[in-house]
């Protein structure tokens, strides 16, 4: 039976819940899936891959040395890894999460019941900047760190419109592929997160992201109030100097039945938090829509589809503006 994450803390003030949600991420079911997997190393999987192909015997001594170097290396085994997952009836995989804990998790933990997504209705957005403000307040971000950023763009016909841009939580995230130390990972609910205890601060992910959605912690002069819990990838507060941070989709909120900070803070109800699994999307005005139908009926688009990133954020165009136009007109 599906146990819906019925919220016990609905009456508590949102800000406190954000922190609380991460406090309970240590014992809460969904969060624990993530944190348990975080501790796992990618080593075993790569080794399995090597021995399976009997690579040693094929290439002889030189390749043997390569295998010595390569043993313990997770090769380009995204797909191979998926094939090695325990066969389950439903879709619930280990996401893009790099970890060998899938089998352990399957036995002890319920499969993830959500695949988070977002829909932004540009027709409803009036560019009031409430969403970045709510996001920055909740995550104690500096004014530069606009994890949710509202761009004012000019359409082909000269009209301006606002484009709120969270992290797109790509299903094929370029930032994940280029991270040299697996500090960026995609957890089992499809949210791309950064392990700030692992990040070496090379900023390759910032170069790879086509949406400029990643923000670095450049300066040490950021002060945080005393916080009850340690920083986690789901709620990276306080952030660590010299590491990269990004929109987390407020996945802690979502797992506790709350809207993300940006969606909750939107007075227009332009931002919908959605779940591809249950096919539901909800905005701050309480409007609940069938996600797939909503996207289909409104001809929703993803941003920069040509980048082959497969975002989990969809846009509903207000007046049929061309999202591609503004990207090209940058000069």
């Amino acid at each position, binding site marked *: 039976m599906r146990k819906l994450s019925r919220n016990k803390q609905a009456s508590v003030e949102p800000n406190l819940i954000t922190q609380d949600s991460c406090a309970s991420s240590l014992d809460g079911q969904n969060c624990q899936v993530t944190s348990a997997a975080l501790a796992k190393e990618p080593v075993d999987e790569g080794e399995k891959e090597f021995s399976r192909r009997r690579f040693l015997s094929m290439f002889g001594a030189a390749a043997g040395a*390569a295998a010595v170097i390569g043993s313990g290396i997770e090769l*380009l085994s995204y797909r191979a890894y*998926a094939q090695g997952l325990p066969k389950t009836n439903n879709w619930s*995989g280990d996401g893009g999460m790099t970890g060998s804990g899938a089998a352990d998790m399957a036995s002890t933990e319920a499969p993830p019941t959500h695949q988070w997504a977002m829909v932004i209705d540009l027709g409803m957005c009036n560019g009031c900047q409430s969403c970045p403000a709510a996001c920055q307040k909740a995550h104690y971000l500096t004014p530069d760190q606009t994890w949710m950023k509202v761009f004012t763009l000019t359409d082909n016909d000269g009209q301006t419109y606002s484009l709120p841009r969270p992290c797109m939580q790509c*299903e094929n995230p370029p930032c994940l592929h280029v991270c040299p130390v697996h500090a960026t990972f995609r957890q089992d609910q499809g949210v791309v997160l950064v392990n700030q205890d692992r990040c070496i601060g090379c900023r390759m992910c910032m170069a790879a992201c086509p949406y400029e959605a990643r923000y670095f912690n450049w300066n040490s002069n950021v002060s945080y109030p005393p916080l009850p819990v340690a920083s986690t990838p789901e709620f990276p507060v306080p952030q660590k100097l010299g590491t990269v941070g990004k929109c987390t989709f407020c996945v802690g909120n979502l797992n506790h039945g709350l809207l993300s900070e940006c969606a909750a803070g939107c007075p227009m109800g332009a931002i919908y938090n959605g779940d591809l699994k*249950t096919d539901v999307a909800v905005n701050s005005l309480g409007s609940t829509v*069938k996600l797939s139908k909503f996207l289909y009926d409104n001809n929703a688009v993803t941003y920069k589809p040509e980048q082959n990133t497969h975002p989990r954020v969809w846009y509903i165009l207000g007046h049929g503006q061309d999202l591609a136009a503004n990207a090209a007109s940058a000069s």
Partner: protein
Amino acid sequence: MRAILRWLVAFCAALASLLIISGTAAAEGSSALTVTVQQLSPASDNLTMVARLTPAAVGQKVTFFVDSQEFSGHSWMAVGSASTNSSGDATYTYTPTWTGTTEFGAAIGSGDSIAAPTAVESFQVLKDPPGVPQSAIEYPRPMGSTGGVLVKTLLGIVAIVWILLLGSLLLVIRRMPRLAGAGESGHKGGR
């Protein structure tokens, strides 16, 4: 309070072990709307929601709702609409996306103004819901199909370079002192 009520309903449903439960809803004006939910077969992913309008009227638009329990719970989600036939039945096939006891509903009319159902029916969904396609979960890495071979080849090349470099250094270190003696004797022999 609501939750307890809902669990009670679920318990009753399980007790009766019925696949089909019908309920009635408040009449709206002169006509009454009844909604029925059926699972066509245990193997099927789909549910059939039937809304019966009494007295029967043809061509009435009926909007169907599902009670979404996502994000702080209870809210009605319009999932689709259908028109009534000659016997007053509007049929809509719905694919549930979660298991457990869920309320289904229907209301006459269509469009954004219809926000909540007038007839409600509770039903326990047992079938595992269909998933998000695996492709959405797992994407191949860049050059995913050839990449494994590529990586091994590249690492092999790197290994060969290292072996050649370190091997030649080792060769020099090991051979050179020995050749010193050999060269000396050779020279002496030549004299």
